[in-house]
């Protein structure tokens, strides 16, 4: 007969074994000290930026806002388009014995309609408040999201390339009470629900629950800024509950008051600036009153477009003001 001490030891051993087994299967997503840099990262995130900016181009034309507003309005529009945080995450998983990949694309903030409703497109708007006077954080400012905004974001899928099994534009999702991904209170408020990283975590959770992807995969993410305060803990939730491993690399904005001693951090600052410059240049080119064009337009195929280029190069085209 086994005495009580032996039985206790066996039970304790079994418990430890169980615990260690569950720990062995818990995933980990590295986020701390993951400083992204280099042309590859900037190129990918610049691609994300264009993806979301082009949706705005189509939306502005559709909403007939491309011919109204004044220079102040358009300065704010440009800022609102080039400054949100961008996230691109690649999830590699195994299903039916095959290794598959799904790439998630998100930007911070609410639906385009909600963003545009913040700007006054009437002619009386004060023209003096241009792009440079906009608050730097305005484009990705903390935002409390409503069900109506979620519905608008979903409806705006028509302005993006169609989702495929491999590529998904992630909108704001309704928050399910049983979700393991919860945003944290920061400063007493829950204002990070619309952060780009959180949107993607929630979408991955939904995809796992819906059987679109499987748990236990690997996540490789890139974010255009340092991760939001809620996002580190949320990534831990995602990793632990769904046994996901991976890394989330972040471009880190330069703090003018400090000097980066770590070369990887300094490289990240430089790449962050390169991305910002590129995003600003794209916004400056495409978001001006009377000069917004439909990204789906194919008029460039005609030879007239080449002749116009050649006339400009030859200096033989009359120069008339274009756009405002």
């Amino acid at each position, binding site marked *: 007969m086994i005495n009580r001490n032996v039985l206790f030891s066996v039970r304790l051993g079994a418990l430890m074994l169980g615990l260690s087994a569950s720990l062995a299967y818990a995933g980990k997503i590295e986020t701390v000290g993951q400083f992204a840099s280099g042309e590859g990262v900037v190129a990918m995130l610049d691609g994300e930026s264009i993806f979301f900016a082009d949706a705005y181009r189509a939306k502005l034309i559709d909403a007939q806002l491309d011919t109204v507003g004044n220079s102040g309005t358009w300065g704010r529009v440009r800022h609102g388009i080039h400054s949100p945080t961008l996230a691109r995450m690649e999830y590699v998983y195994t299903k039916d014995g095959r290794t598959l990949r799904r790439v998630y694309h998100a930007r911070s903030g609410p639906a385009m309609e909600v963003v545009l409703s913040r700007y006054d497109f009437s002619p009386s708007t004060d023209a003096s408040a241009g792009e440079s006077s906009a608050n730097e954080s305005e484009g990705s400012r903390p935002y409390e999201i409503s069900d109506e905004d979620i519905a608008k974001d979903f409806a705006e899928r028509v302005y993006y390339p169609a989702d495929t099994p491999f590529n998904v534009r992630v909108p704001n999702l309704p928050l399910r009470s049983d979700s393991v991904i919860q945003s944290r209170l920061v400063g007493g408020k829950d204002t990070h629900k619309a952060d780009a990283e959180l949107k993607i975590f929630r979408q991955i959770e939904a995809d796992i629950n819906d059987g679109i992807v499987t748990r236990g995969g690997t996540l490789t993410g890139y974010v255009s800024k340092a991760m939001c305060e809620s996002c580190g803990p949320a990534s831990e939730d995602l990793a632990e509950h769904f046994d996901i491993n991976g890394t989330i690399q972040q471009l880190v904005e330069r703090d003018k008051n400090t000097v980066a001693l770590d070369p990887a951090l300094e490289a990240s600052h430089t790449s962050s600036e390169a991305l910002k410059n590129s995003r600003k240049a794209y916004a400056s080119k495409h978001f001006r009153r009377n*000069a917004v064009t439909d990204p789906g337009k194919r008029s460039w195929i005609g030879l007239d*477009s080449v002749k116009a*280029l050649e006339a400009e190069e030859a200096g033989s085209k009359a120069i008339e003001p274009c756009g405002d």
Partner: protein
Amino acid sequence: MKPLLRLACLAALLPGPALAAGQTTVDVYRELIRYRAATVGAEKAFGYDTHAYVSKFLDNPDSLYSDLRIDPPITNEIWWYDFVDSLPIDATEKSDAALDMLQWQGGFTKARIGIDVVVDKASVRAYRGEYAAASAIKAGVDADIFLKAWDMNGRMTTIGAGHAVALQLLRHQVRSNAPETYDALGIKPGVLSRYLQQNNPEKIDAFDQAYLADLLRYALSRQDFTIDTDGHRQLPAAYRVARVAAAFADAGGYLNPHGYCRGNDPHPDEPTRADAIDDNRPLCFVAATDRAVQSWFRRQMRHEASLIRKAHENRDETATRLMAWFSGALLLIDLAGFVEMGEAGLLGEMSAEGAIPEEEAAYAEERANQLTCRLRS
């Protein structure tokens, strides 16, 4: 032995630097813009358009085959030697080296065999011909990438050229960095290896295509050159892509029995004026300036896009994928030759650094925006 091949073999016997006397890897154009903006301000420094800038370097700016000016007026400017002295160029003739770089960056040079490019026998075989080799080598694309991108894209040579340069950019990054840094640097070596091993273009997945398009689009938008792993300068991406497309055309051969070149010159039976490309006719690419090859590329790209439109009226997946390459990346090549674009980008950088006032950058930005606005409307 064909005269060109003989010339190529002779050139191969010359020491490498003979073709690259006084070469520097300093971004002289970038430094020029910065120097002029800082010393006299944007409006005064850049009161010229693209045509005026090109005229400073080419004998006949309207010719596809123009020679370089022997006496480029830029070197007579009173500020030129102060500017040259400010450059970290390690050469006895700093002025010549700086001028050589401006000519090369601006797309004013050619790909003449034995003069601008060394083409050896192995390259002639590898790139399927001496003319193809000259343009492909000038574009800095390895032969295995060149042939694979050609094979995967068939008649869509402009898209194939975009793939080739994107793959080469990726190979450069893979070779220049330690494997443990790939994730942090966004380098995906699997995209390169999968492409080179693939035999079916439909099986290159959307992710890999999008990644390559991102790399190329960003390189095109930067409008600057790169230094490869061997320390050689590589042309700005737009001219690289155009040169590869030209190399595909030369490698594929022509129905025209005499081709378009005689030696390193345009064939005397072919037109040589600017309107020589009006009918989408190939050029004698080795004799043409990079800018002229870029002009030809614009037309060739539209020709290929119209073929897709005709062949895929229902906008199937293949058509969508191919058209995304045109509108998402290759269209940027249209604007690569305009100095207004490059200057706006560089002054924007300077303004962000606090090196010049915002208004200076705004002037250049507005000039570039006006140009793109006119071209789009």
